[in-house]
C-alpha cells in the first residue's frame, strides 16, 4: 500500500533521513521507532508531502506520490495526527470533526457559500458522522466544548477521531500514546486493533511506548540518525543489540 524507496532529505548540511526504505502492506499496523531526532516525524512529513525529499520516492498504491501536495494526500486517503496535537483550538470538538471531513463534504465551495440545498443536506450527514465518531470514542459529552482547554489525553483521542473523520485508508499516527498513562495506553492499543478490524484501516505509527508497539504492531522499523537501524517483528527488534545500544547509548553495550 505504502512504499518508501531510498528516501533522503537534507536541510542545508544536515541529512535528516538517509536512504530510508520501508513498506506498509494493506491491513498492517507498522511501527516506526527510534530515539529523538532520528527522523521519524520528518519521514511522516515526506509521506504527507509537507517536505519534498532530496532523493527517493514515496509510492502509494504503486503510484509515485512524492511530489503530490499535502492537501491532495488527504483526499487520497492518507490521514495523519501530529506530535503535539494538531487541531483547530478555537473550535468545538464537533466543529473539528466537521473540519476533518473537508474532502468528504460532497459539495462545492460555492454551494456552501450560498447555502444551497445540497450543502445543507450534506452538512446534516457530516454532523451525524461526526457524532458517530464522538460516540465511538466515548467523547460525546465534549461535543460542544471548545477544545482549547481540554486535557492532553482527551485531545490525543479526539485527534485520532479527526484523523478517522478524513476517512483514511492509511493512517499515520505520531506518538498517539503520549500524555497517556499505562491503562489509557492499553485501551488505545485495543482501540487501534478494533479500528483495523472494523474499518480496515492500515496504520503506520511513531511510538516510544514499547508495550503498545508490542501489542499492536505487526512489523517495526527502527531509525537512528536518519538511517534504518533494524526491522522485524516487535520481539525481534526489541532484542536487537544495535537498537538497545541506540536507546541506551553505545557505551552501555561497549562497556
Amino acid at each position, binding site marked *: 500500500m505504502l512504499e518508501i524507496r531510498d528516501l533522503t532529505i537534507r536541510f542545508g548540511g544536515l541529512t535528516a533521513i538517509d536512504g530510508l526504505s520501508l513498506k506498509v502492506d494493506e491491513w498492517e499496523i507498522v511501527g516506526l521507532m527510534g530515539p529523538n531526532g532520528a527522523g521519524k516525524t520528518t519521514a511522516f512529513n515526506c509521506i504527507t508531502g509537507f517536505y519534498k525529499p532530496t532523493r527517493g520516492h514515496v509510492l502509494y498504491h504503486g503510484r509515485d506520490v512524492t511530489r503530490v501536495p499535502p492537501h491532495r494526500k488527504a483526499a487520497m486517503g492518507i490521514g495523519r495526527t501530529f506530535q503535539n496535537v494538531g487541531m483547530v483550538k478555537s473550535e468545538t470538538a464537533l466543529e473539528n470533526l466537521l473540519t476533518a471531513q473537508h474532502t468528504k463534504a460532497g459539495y462545492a465551495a460555492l454551494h456552501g*457559500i450560498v*447555502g444551497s440545498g445540497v450543502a445543507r443536506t450534506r452538512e446534516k450527514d457530516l454532523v451525524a458522522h461526526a457524532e458517530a465518531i464522538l460516540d465511538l470514542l466515548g467523547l460525546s459529552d465534549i461535543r460542544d466544548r471548545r477544545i482549547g482547554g481540554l486535557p492532553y489525553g482527551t485531545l490525543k483521542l479526539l485527534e485520532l477521531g479527526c484523523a478517522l473523520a478524513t476517512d483514511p485508508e492509511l493512517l499515520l499516527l505520531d506518538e498517539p500514546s503520549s500524555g497517556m498513562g499505562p491503562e489509557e495506553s492499553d485501551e488505545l492499543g485495543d482501540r487501534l486493533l478494533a479500528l483495523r478490524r472494523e474499518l480496515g484501516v492500515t496504520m503506520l505509527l511513531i511510538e516510544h511506548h514499547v508495550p503498545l508497539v508490542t501489542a499492536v504492531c505487526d512489523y517495526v522499523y527502527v531509525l537512528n540518525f536518519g538511517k534504518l537501524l533494524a526491522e522485524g517483528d516487535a520481539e525481534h527488534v526489541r532484542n536487537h543489540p544495535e537498537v538497545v545500544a541506540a536507546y541506551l547509548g553505545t557505551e552501555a553495550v561497549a562497556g
Partner: protein
Amino acid sequence: MTADASVSSALPGRRRLASRTVATRALAALPLLALVLWLPSTNDTYGHVATYAAIFIMVGLSMNVLTGYTGQISLGHQAFVGLGALTAANVVKTGIVPADPFMFGVGMVCASAASGVAALLLGAVALRIRGLYLALVTLVFGSVFADAIFTLPSLNGSDAGVSAYRPNSLASDYRYFLFALLLAAGCLYIDQRVRGSKVGRGLIALRENELVAQAYGVSVLRYKLIGFTISGAMAGLAGGVAAFWSQEFSDKNFTDVAGFNLALTFVVIAVVGGLGSRGGVVLAAIFFALTSPISPLLQSLANAMHWGTYYGNNKFYVSNVIGAVLLLQTVILNPGGLGQVLRPFSRWFAGHPFSLHDPDGGDTTAMEGGGVRA
C-alpha cells in the same frame, strides 16, 4: 464507518425541541426589527443614516470574513469599497436622469465582481507575503490603488465626480434604505453560510494552523483566494450601494487622508465588533454609523450641551477619537470585542439557558496569539 443508530436517532428529537425554543425566543427580537424598519421611514435624514449603517454592516462583514475567519488583516479595505462605488457609478452613468433599473442591477453586480477580482489579486500576493509585511502591503495597496485608479480622469468624471442617480423605484431615501438593508441581510446570510459550511471551517483551520488544515485536505492556495474574493465581493457591493446612497462617486472620499480614515474605520468596526463574530460586527457597524460625522445623533447631543458649534467644526476628529478609544479598549482589555460581551444573549437566542458565565469560553482566538496572522 457506520453512524451509530442510537446516537443519530436521539438527535433529531433534541434538535426539534431546541428549534421550538429558538423560534419562541426569536420573537423577542421582533420589536427591534419593527423599530429598524419603522424609524428610518419617519424622516429622510434617518433613512439616509440607516442606509449608511447598512453599508457599514456590509463592509464590517466583509472584514469579518477576511480578518475574522481567514485571519488576514486588511488596512486597505477602502480600495475595495471605492472600486465598487466607482464601478457601479461608471456602469450605470445616469447623469441627471433616473437610472435604468436593469443597468442599476448590472452596476451592482459589476461593483461586486470588480472588487472580488481585485481582492483575488491581493490574495495571490498574500500567498507569499505574510504577517506584518502583509499588513503593510494591504495598507500601501489601499492607498496606492485608490490614488492611482480612482483619480483617472476617465473614471472620476474629470475630477468632478460621477453622478449616480437611483432608479425611480428606489428614489426615496426610505426605499433605498430597504434595498440596502436587503443586501446587508444577504451579506449576513452569506457570512453565516460561510461559517456553517466547509468553507468557513477550512478558512478558520488555515487561520490557526496551515499544516493541520492541509492534513485535513484544505488547499491553502484555494481557500486563501476564496476568503479574499468573498471579502472583496462584499466590500465592492457595499461600495456600489454607497455610490447610489450619496448619488455620486467622488474619488476624494477614498484617497489620501479621507481614504486612510475610512480604512481604519473598517478595521475598528471589525475589531470592536469582535473578530469572527457576526452579531458583534453588525452592532459595531451600526454604532459607528450612528456616531459618524454624517449622523445627526452626536450633533444633537452636542447642541443640547451647548457644544454644537465646536462639534460641528470638529466632527471628523471626534469620530476618530471615539473609534480609536474603543479600538484600543478592545485590543487591550477585551479581545473578544462586542461579540464576546453579547455571547450570553446570542447563546440564549440559540436555545441555550441564559447565563452570564459562558461554559465554552467563546472564541477569542482570532485576537490571541496565533490567531490573526496578518
